[in-house]
């Protein structure tokens, strides 16, 4: 299972990197989103992969290997919210730029051929 997740994250991140190197703003924003998905998954599995186990309990003196790590879950929630907000902000910027410059090139003008 570790291998599958690792490969998935790798593919997501690599696609993201490829897309942000493209010249159109739409490609860049999709690239950013893929990268942030990859990063969120990455944070999540840093608490080790567990299946069907609760993060919290009310009993004391527990065996911690029987529980999922709650810290990474909290971290990833925050990271998702922040990433979502900043990506939305970039989307607005992208549309403004498209409206004001008339092109969706990242430089704000078409390259001269």
């Amino acid at each position, binding site marked *: 299972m570790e291998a599958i997740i690792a490969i998935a994250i790798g593919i997501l991140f690599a696609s993201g990197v490829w897309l*942000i190197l493209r010249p159109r*703003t739409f490609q*860049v924003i999709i690239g*950013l989103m893929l*990268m*942030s998905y990859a*990063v*969120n998954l*990455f*944070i999540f599995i*840093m*608490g080790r992969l567990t299946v069907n186990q609760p993060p919290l309990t*009310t*009993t*004391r003196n527990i065996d911690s290997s029987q529980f999922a790590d709650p*810290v*990474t879950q909290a*971290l990833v929630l*925050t*990271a998702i919210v*922040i*990433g979502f*907000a*900043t*990506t939305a*902000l*970039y989307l607005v*910027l*992208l549309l*403004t*730029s498209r409206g*004001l*410059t008339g092109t969706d090139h*990242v*430089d*704000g003008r078409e390259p001269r051929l």
Partner: protein
Amino acid sequence: MMFALDQLILLPILLPLTLGALLVLLRGHEQLKFVVSLGGTLCLLTAALALYLLTDREVWPNGVGVYLAGNWMAPFGISLVVDRLAALMLLLSTVIASAALIFSRRRWSRAGVHFHSLFQFLLTGINGSFLTGDLFNLFVFFEIMLAASYGLLLLGLQPRRIRASMQYVVINLIASSIFLIGIALIYAACGTLNLADLSQRATSLDDTQRLLLETGAAILAIAFLTKGAMWPLGFWLPATYAAAAPPVAAMLVLMTKVGIYVILRLWLLIFAGQEDHWHTLSGMALVAGGLLTLCFGTLGLLSNLEPGRMAGFSAIVSSGTLLIAIGYGGPAVVSAALFYLVSSTLAVAAFMLLLELIERIRDPGAELLAQTMEAFDIDDAADESAGVAIPAATAFLGLSFVTCALIMAGLPPLSGFVAKFSLLHALLNPASASLAVSTLTFVIIALVIFSGLAAIIALLRFGVRVFWSIPGMKPPRLHLSEALPASGLLLLCILLSLGAGPASDYLARTSAALHQPGQYSERVLSSTPVPGAGIPDGEIP
């Protein structure tokens, strides 16, 4: 009494956050908004001054104050920590923020809808980054700071600013992703994100965990060095600075220093005192990166005639010098570097504010400004009676420019010279044998001196072109609220050079405390929650 003092640590975050939210509600009352915003910033200045005195007088043990948010014990909850370095940076940030805010009163605060709110949020983020005691909150405050800076950079919505913002935003979003990867790796290695806890655990890791921690730290460093504009990660900086409105550019100068601050803090907290290959290697990486940054900044300074870009490159020069000093290490060098940090940040921020005023002599910028003013319906004429135009504007500008240039180039008698001199002195008089003078030391000294020479050539060339070679120059109209902030910042630099003795003593204490991370982490981890405030006492029903 201590309880009340502890609350003061929260103020630099809470106050601007609340004010920023309240200011959104005030629509259209420009004067009121400005008064509230400035009042809040001045309160912050007082709070920063108080924290500065409290940490330096060691009112808190070892001069480290801890605020446990939510009353949770240190490694579990969110802790805010103020020590001498944090207090110094807070003071620096509030001083520059006050200057930028006063400067923005006449024009820039009205070029965007929520200028004051964004400005306060920016302050929340910057202050939070200085005060936070754990890595993940550092990320959160970084994002607050960046989100506000995106909005401020777009102020006035000119196509040039949008183009610069597009690149600035993308680079920072990527840097944030890298930041998160670094944090995740460090958490995987140590199982904690609290800086104090990390500092203690880093010494007792096995080899696999150690490798993870080092990888995480290296990845994290990429994010901060992008912020701190190390070559080759700092290409975004000149274009962004040149496009930003002057008060925003002054705040951006401060934000580069946030990156430098974090590197200084993390590096000394987690890796200092461990004389192993990793320590040497990362130190060398910082020195090498710093040297390349310095070269890049110097060449950029010499090859550019556009004032905004020149200011950007001088910020890069300052970053480069600081990185070299941090990487080189040793309490004396770091103390000198802190002096340089304060003096160069004040000077470059003042330069940013002066540039717009100087541009009025040259005029081509006035056209752009007029466009913005028209777009946002700012009536300049109505304002003529409100501000007091200062006399002898050209003489004032010339004098301020020369002061600024002297500080930035590091020529006597001002603070820039004191800073560079003490840096070179510290490099040549190593405290321990492991830092002995070598060829590298002389390369660093030669480059630092050469960068000063290049700065003075570039600035003189600019000064001569502006002040002496324009026929039929009309003295520009300057208002008190525009002239005051820049001259205030420069006056602080002059005071800093007059009081160089006490200032250096203070910075030596700061640097000595930084080189004893044990005290810091012990203080944070041993701080107890407030009793009787409904803390969970361990009995879970």
